[in-house]
């Protein structure tokens, strides 16, 4: 499938389709005695949907955490191309990584639970906003102008995800599925170059998964956001992704098109199981 | 009017800063009771000059800020004089009372409060802490003879505790005493003072002068006894009382010395008769109330005498008039305070000079010197 270009929301540069956006090489991450990631290397291409699969505990979430800076790998290189040069994410703090245009959602919903949906989404605009103390305290003037401008953008995400009705609700009072949607929305508000999604559809029935799939495809197709997706539902993975990487015990055991991966005996053995592999 | 309160002809209001709780409440409570007891007694007698005294008394827990806000409250209620308590609050309110022209007495006998130039509206009824320290040092010098006496001063960690220190140092120098002198602040609420006593021991101290209230002082006595240390406590004013003996236990208290300007109830001084009768009439015994009760009683008595004179002179009862009346007043306390009388002049607001010295013998305070003054 053709990949798409992306006009970087933070520096205005154009990321060409087909270029390498993210390059991971030789990443090693260990907790005490356990090797969560062993010498993992893969790369994500601008404008594609890249799935990461693998058995539980394989290190998928850890890999995402390394990319977004929440874990710091002991060794290895994680480079992000922003159209203005390359940045090594492996040694960078999370908020700096976010400011390069990397957004994410979490395996277990990590919303700002006491804030409203709007406030959560507005926080997605954080990297685009200025926050000087004195103007903030004065409100009238730049602070208010900025709030209104960003609010307009946020409303578009609200429309896209069809969460108009719950705008002012405190997120902790929302049903699980809606919270997942808000979390996706928060990441979208960043207008990211790279969107990392950790099991966005877990715990949903088929109908709800279809909605989520549509949302993901929309942002991807309309804007050219590169998506990196962890998912256990093989139907979703096979249908949505352009490329699939498979981890097992912290090692990359396969990397290729969905078709290739599905028929890879190592993957069937480690992850899919005979039945799913066949189906 | 002459400032400081209004004279509507109704009851005469006096603001009282009480310390019913907080670090010095052990001695502050009986003192406050004594003051209020005196007021009740006077009012029973028909008041002064036919007018009742109304004492507005609130607890300030030995906290300066609370004293300040109470002071504001009293002022707004139209008091003509203030009875304070501690060194900290008296010094903090010094400028206010001067500005508002409200005479102020307190149970703090710090020297600056007795100096009309520094604190024109403050009056101190007893010998200053400095004088008490001097008397204590004189006594120690007499005991030991040259060269043997090392003094460790254990004091409350506050302006009150530090008040007599500089007087003590300069006194030793001035008198040429061969006495070592070191000061150690006592932490509040300590479970023991063994650490301090160890330091004093290394200093070689034989005498422990304590400027603190009786509860912590008693703990020191217990620690001395528990460790069998060869040390003698010399209490100044605020730990020189029956409470010290009771809290430490007669055994631990035995032999320690007290510099106390006020006579004990057991002394049989004539000034106690009235007090004892009033207490008994209210179903108590003066022996239980202790000497701080009488101390409060007579401090209020001095203030009342000044007010009575203002009324007798046909003047308005205002703060400044009371102050003038105090300066030139001589009150007989029947031997309870210092040498017996309290007199103030425009030059000196220290009302008495003499102090008694007691020693604990068989669980009781026994007078070993009366009306002692610093060696001339």
């Amino acid at each position, binding site marked *: 499938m053709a990949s798409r270009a992306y006009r970087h929301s933070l520096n205005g540069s154009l990321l060409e389709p087909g270029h390498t956006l993210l390059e991971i090489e030789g990443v090693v991450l260990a*907790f005490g005695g*356990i090797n969560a990631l062993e010498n993992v290397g893969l790369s994500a291409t601008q404008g594609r949907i890249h799935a990461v*699969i*693998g*058995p*539980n*505990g*394989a290190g998928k979430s850890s890999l995402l955490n390394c990319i977004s800076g929440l874990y710091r790998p002991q060794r290895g290189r994680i480079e992000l191309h922003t159209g203005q040069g390359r940045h090594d994410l492996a040694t960078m703090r999370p908020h700096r990584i976010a400011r390069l245009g990397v957004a994410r959602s979490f*395996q*277990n919903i990590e919303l700002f639970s006491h804030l409203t949906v709007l406030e959560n989404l507005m926080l997605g605009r954080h990297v685009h906003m200025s926050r000087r103390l004195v103007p903030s305290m004065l409100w009238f003037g730049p602070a208010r102008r900025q709030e209104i401008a960003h609010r307009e*953008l946020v409303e*578009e995400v609200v*429309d*896209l995800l069809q969460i108009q009705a719950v705008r002012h609700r405190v997120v902790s009072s929302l*049903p*699980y*599925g*809606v919270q997942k949607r808000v979390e996706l929305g928060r990441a979208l508000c960043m*207008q990211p170059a790279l969107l990392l999604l950790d*099991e966005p559809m*877990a*715990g*949903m*029935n*088929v*109908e*709800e*998964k*279809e*909605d989520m*799939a*549509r949302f993901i*495809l*929309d*942002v991807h197709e*309309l*804007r050219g956001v590169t998506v990196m997706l962890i998912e*256990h539902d*093989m*139907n*979703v993975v096979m*249908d*949505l992704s352009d490329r699939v990487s498979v981890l097992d015990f912290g090692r990359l055991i396969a990397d290729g098109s969905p078709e290739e991966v599905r028929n890879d005996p190592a993957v069937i053995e*480690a*992850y*899919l*199981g005979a*039945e*799913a592999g066949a189906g | 009017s002459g400032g400081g309160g209004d004279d509507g002809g109704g009851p005469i209001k006096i603001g009282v800063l009480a310390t019913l709780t907080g670090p010095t409440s052990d001695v502050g409570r009986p003192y406050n009771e004594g003051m209020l007891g005196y007021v009740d007694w006077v009012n029973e007698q028909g008041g002064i000059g036919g007018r009742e005294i109304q004492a507005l008394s609130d607890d300030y827990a030995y906290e300066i800020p609370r004293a300040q806000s109470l002071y504001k409250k009293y002022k707004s209620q139209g008091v003509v004089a203030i009875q304070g308590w501690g060194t900290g609050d008296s010094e903090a309110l010094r400028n206010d009372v001067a500005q508002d022209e409200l005479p102020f007495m307190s149970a703090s006998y710090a020297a600056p409060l007795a100096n009309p130039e520094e604190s024109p509206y403050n009056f101190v009824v007893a010998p200053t802490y400095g004088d008490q320290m001097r008397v204590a040092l004189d006594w120690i010098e007499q005991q030991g003879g040259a060269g043997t006496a090392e003094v460790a001063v254990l004091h409350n960690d506050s302006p009150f505790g530090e008040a007599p220190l500089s007087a003590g140092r300069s006194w030793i120098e001035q008198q040429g005493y061969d006495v070592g002198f070191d000061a150690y602040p006592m932490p509040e609420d300590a479970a023991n003072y063994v650490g301090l006593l160890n330091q004093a021991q290394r200093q070689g101290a034989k005498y422990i002068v304590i400027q603190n209230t009786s509860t912590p002082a008693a703990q020191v006595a217990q620690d001395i006894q528990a460790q069998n240390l060869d040390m003698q406590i010399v209490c100044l004013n605020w730990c020189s009382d029956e409470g010290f003996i009771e809290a430490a236990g007669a055994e631990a208290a035995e032999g320690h010395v007290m510099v106390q300007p006020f006579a004990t109830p057991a002394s049989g001084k004539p000034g106690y008769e009235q007090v004892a009768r009033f207490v008994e009439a209210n179903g108590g015994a003066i022996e239980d109330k202790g000497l701080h009760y009488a101390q409060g009683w007579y401090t209020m008595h001095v203030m009342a005498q000044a007010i009575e004179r203002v009324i007798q002179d046909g003047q308005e009862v205002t703060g400044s008039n009371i102050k003038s009346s105090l300066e030139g007043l001589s009150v007989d306390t029947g031997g309870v305070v210092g040498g017996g009388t309290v007199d103030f002049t425009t030059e000196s607001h220290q009302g008495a000079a003499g102090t008694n010295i007691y020693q604990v013998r068989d669980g009781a305070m026994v007078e070993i010197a009366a009306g002692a003054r610093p060696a001339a």
Partner: protein
Amino acid sequence: MTLRDRSPATPEGAHQASSGGDPVLRLHNIEVIYDRVVLALRGVSIEVAEGTIAALLGPNGAGKSTTLKAVSGLLPTERGEISDGHIRFCDRDVTHLDAAARVRLGISLCMEGRHVFKHLTVADNLAAGAYTRGTASREDLDLVYEYFPRLVGLRRRAAGYLSGGEQQQLVIGRAMMARPSLLMLDEPSLGLAPTLVEDIFGYIARLNRELGTTVLVIEQNARQALEVAHRGYVMEQGRIVLEGSAAQLRNNPDVKEFYLGLGEHGRRKSYRDVKHYKRRKHWL
């Protein structure tokens, strides 16, 4: 089948039930209110026969977890209460019984979201599971380790550090330690890899077969759930809207579309082909 099918279990269903006894668990017209305002269940009736597996399906927020919490007595911890109806377990009214007492009666729940004791080791987690039975017996432990051999090597590890699948195994193992006669599982396959999902359903079937444990399971993975279950219920908005034997449900067209993701001709439709909402945003 229409919206509300309440036909009794078919002979086929009865045949499937291994020991096919009387209902051990019977919910009668249960109504649950959270915070005194949110009506989460509006009259739910469910019967689970002894020694069978029942599956509970439904979209997010339908009230599935609430149903299980009502049975296990956890509602008070979330400011919820049963405002109407009653629950009988083994012919005993347990509607308002204390949660701990229900465990002693043999009702165990594996909550949604792998509630392991994060700071306890795997072994201590299992010991906690045996709380109602005094101390953990060797036998029970061996059985759990036999079912879940992966846990053996992790015995001394703090459970918080286990991966999702490992935690899921631990939670089920921990529930086994209480030797429940009714085991309730809330989305046990959530977030598990496909092989493990197979395994988990394997364990459930095995538990039911070998120990005769009655099972009530909530699942989004309808295909697998209906494979092992004898009977199924579908909930929506606090009501049971569909019930029947597993086979009946598998063939229901609604279930096929919304839960099994099968298109008109019984073929799975692709997620790519889901209706496209054309909403081009200028920032997108």
